[in-house]
């Protein structure tokens, strides 16, 4: 009886795992086939990859979209980590009643749905000339209560002795943060970097709103635009999806543990 249950458990987990992988496997395989072979149900890699690539390069500015996506996501990650970790550190290390109260007000921002502020943000940003700019992409999500919480939580474990010792050594407050806190909290920074990069890379609604110019679009936007044609070339479409997914999938496989810690980090 226990044995049967044990086998059933493995069978169940195997089926769920296969279902989880299959769409991505099919996508990657389809990227190497002509559309007609995708329709026929090809499940093994083909030899049409380079033909699809040259067709894709004609269909859309993949290079431009890739560069944009990397530019927006990397700048976002660096700035968001700096601003939010500085704030998280400030809220925790120097905490008093006033700062705690501000923090709980900031947490309310977590409840604000993005669609609710999208239109005023669009109006503000068009007035400020921020459409089609990196800054325009960044500003709405540069500072998030989630990241501030994550760093506030990690600052809680920052030893007070080290802080006092650094002060006695004559280091000023900002240098303590820069030279001691950041290097000690490498793993928190790694987790935060992954979730911020992935969030920025995958974001769709906001770029769709402010990137009105064809040369400013991101990879997800390019992929979404490709599906609009009358006849879908599945090989080309799946190759675009593959290119859009490669950066985040690589990060996932290399840093899965930090990614998992990142999404659950602020609630522990």
């Amino acid at each position, binding site marked *: 009886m226990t044995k049967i249950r044990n086998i059933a458990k493995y069978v169940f987990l195997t089926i*769920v795992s296969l279902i989880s992988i299959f769409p991505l496997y099919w996508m990657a395989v389809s990227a190497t086939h002509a559309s007609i072979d995708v329709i026929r149900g090809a499940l093994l890699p083909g030899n049409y990859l380079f033909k699809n690539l040259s067709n894709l390069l004609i269909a859309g500015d993949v290079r431009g979209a890739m560069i944009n996506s990397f530019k927006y996501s990397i700048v976002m990650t660096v700035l968001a980590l700096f601003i939010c970790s500085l704030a998280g550190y400030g809220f925790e290390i120097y905490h008093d009643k006033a700062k705690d109260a501000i923090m709980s007000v900031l947490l309310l921002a977590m409840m604000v749905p993005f669609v609710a502020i999208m*239109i005023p943000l669009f109006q503000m940003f068009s007035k400020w000339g921020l459409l089609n700019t990196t800054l325009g992409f960044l500003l709405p999500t540069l500072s998030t209560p989630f990241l501030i919480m994550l760093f506030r939580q990690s600052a809680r474990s920052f030893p007070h002795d080290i802080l006092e010792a650094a002060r006695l050594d004559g280091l000023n407050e900002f240098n303590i943060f820069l030279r001691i806190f950041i290097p000690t909290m490498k793993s928190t920074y790694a987790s935060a970097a992954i979730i911020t990069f992935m969030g920025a890379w995958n974001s769709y609604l906001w770029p769709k709103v402010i990137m009105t110019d064809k040369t400013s679009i991101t990879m997800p936007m390019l992929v979404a635009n490709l599906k609009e044609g009358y006849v879908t070339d599945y090989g080309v479409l799946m190759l675009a999806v593959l290119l859009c997914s490669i950066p985040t999938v690589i990060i996932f496989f290399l840093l899965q543990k930090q990614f998992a810690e990142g999404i659950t980090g602020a609630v*522990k």
Partner: protein
Amino acid sequence: MGNKKKLSLSQKQNISGWIFLTPATLLIAIMSFYPMIRAIILSMQSGVGARITFSGLTNYKRMFSDAIFMQSLKNTFIYLIVQVPIMLIFALLLASLLNDKHLRFKGLFRTCIFLPCATSLVSYAIIFRSLFAVDGYINTALVNLGILQTGYNFLSNPFAARIVIIIALLWRWTGYNMVFYLAGLQNIEYSIYEAAKIDGATYFQILRKITIPLLKPMILLTAIMSTNGTLQLFDESVNLTSGGPANATITMSHYIYNSSFKYVPNFGYSAAMSFLILILVAVLAAVQMKVGDKRD
């Protein structure tokens, strides 16, 4: 003297603290709270371009006689009521299976189930759109297996299209929630499970009497997050079904986007609809916290 110097030092530190949190705080104030207030004002205005007039609650009244908006509200709630519970139960089941010290290939299973989270919402929506197309892989497989005569157009039947969206959402988010439960389970002493097993407790007894009560805060959190996410669904509606057939799958965010940027822009009306989402998010979160907090 010494006392005075110490005081100024701690004042200095206090000022540093304020400086450190200012940029992040200002950004949230300007990029979230200020637009929220603007949205409320906007929602009480009508007209396009320069001819903006104050119209009180007209936009809010209009919502309830707008057939497409009511349809989008209904669709969103169908996703919420059907998909979220299935997903959370499934995630809990998987997490409790993977939390077994004696399980082999644990890391491999976890990686596979977690992997969908690495794909962007646009990407997976388009993968599922292609898989379930008339000439997509699912139909090819069903025809080859002799289950169907010719390809079935899943995305042109309202019921089937909603099911496809729900399947896609389950695929993308179950692993995500599972990770939260796995993190929560790590805080539970493993010896409790061992003891229960020695006492002859079955898998479902352990789940009901130990796992679920101890994971309650995590379950509450994931329920609130999923509700919040579902009320804001956008990418899937736009890219998987394009809201169709005949608005059968359109979500609130998708309709709001259309009425602000696709059709003749009506920002006031859109702001009113989006304000309703804010209210729904807040009310449902409050209800869940109330229910979740009950001691039994």
